């Protein structure tokens, strides 16, 4: 049941990513060139809604529909947040895709994004190899 919900939420996310063209290289390019407000407004309004939701969930100690405690994973700071973040940003501007949109580009029929996806897996392995020696 839980996995069915996850699948449906994922599918809904995929539809919104495609229909808002957040997965478009052209939109990402226009964002970094400051030519269009589309991406900024989407990100800002998404955070506003998300933050309000998290506030309400915490304030009223809402439970999941399965009556479980809602646990939000913390994001601890380490040096990789900056170094990895910068490298990701460079890759984002090249490919026009962050991880969610990589999957969405593939699903939408931009099959060349499979190369982006393969590159991302190689990058993940590179991180797995180097992790013990990287500053954290």
């Amino acid at each position, binding site marked *: 049941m839980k996995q069915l919900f996850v699948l449906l939420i994922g*599918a809904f996310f995929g539809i919104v*990513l495609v229909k808002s063209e957040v997965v478009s290289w052209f939109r990402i390019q226009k964002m970094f060139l400051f030519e269009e407000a589309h991406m900024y407004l989407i990100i800002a309004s998404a955070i506003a809604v*998300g933050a309000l939701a998290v506030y309400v969930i915490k304030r009223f100690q809402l439970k999941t529909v399965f009556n479980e405690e809602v646990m939000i994973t913390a994001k601890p700071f380490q040096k990789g947040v900056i170094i990895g973040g910068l490298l990701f940003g460079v890759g984002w501007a090249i490919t026009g895709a962050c991880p*969610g949109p990589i999957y969405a580009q593939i699903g939408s029929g931009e099959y060349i994004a499979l*190369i982006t996806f393969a590159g991302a*897996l190689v990058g993940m392995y590179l991180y797995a190899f180097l992790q013990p020696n990287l500053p954290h």
Partner: protein
Amino acid sequence: MEWILQPWPWYIAGPLIGLMVPALLLLSGKTFGVSTSFQHLGAICTPKSNLPYLKNFDRRDNNWQLVFVAGIVLGAFVGSHYLSINPVSFLPDNYYTLSGMVRLALGGLLVGFGVRYAGGCTSGHTIMGLSNLQWSSLVASISFFAGGLLLTHVLQF
């Protein structure tokens, strides 16, 4: 209903993306994010790896990530084939050349390495982390953006 077939404006799309946060938390108890799926695929493809990053990964606990990204692929297919008048092109034509493919592979590598090193992507850090007022996610989001600006305005690769 004609508007559904057009590109959706930000004031529809942004709040809907924000709703991913409570939808996942309340319907599945999961924290919104996408990039852990890469680590999960690594743990599956090389199950005997001795690398702590893959060996210590709890696959059972993260199974939902694969279901979630499968949903994204499915939804994207529906969105472009049934909810659009014409299929929209998301990548420039010159990416369908050898040099374009090299760029995508290199860019993809930076995305995969970067998000895993940073511990999250635009979903996990910028939307979820900032919604949860995590200051590391603010640093991450600024770094993502700085990297993008660096490429677009300085490196111009």
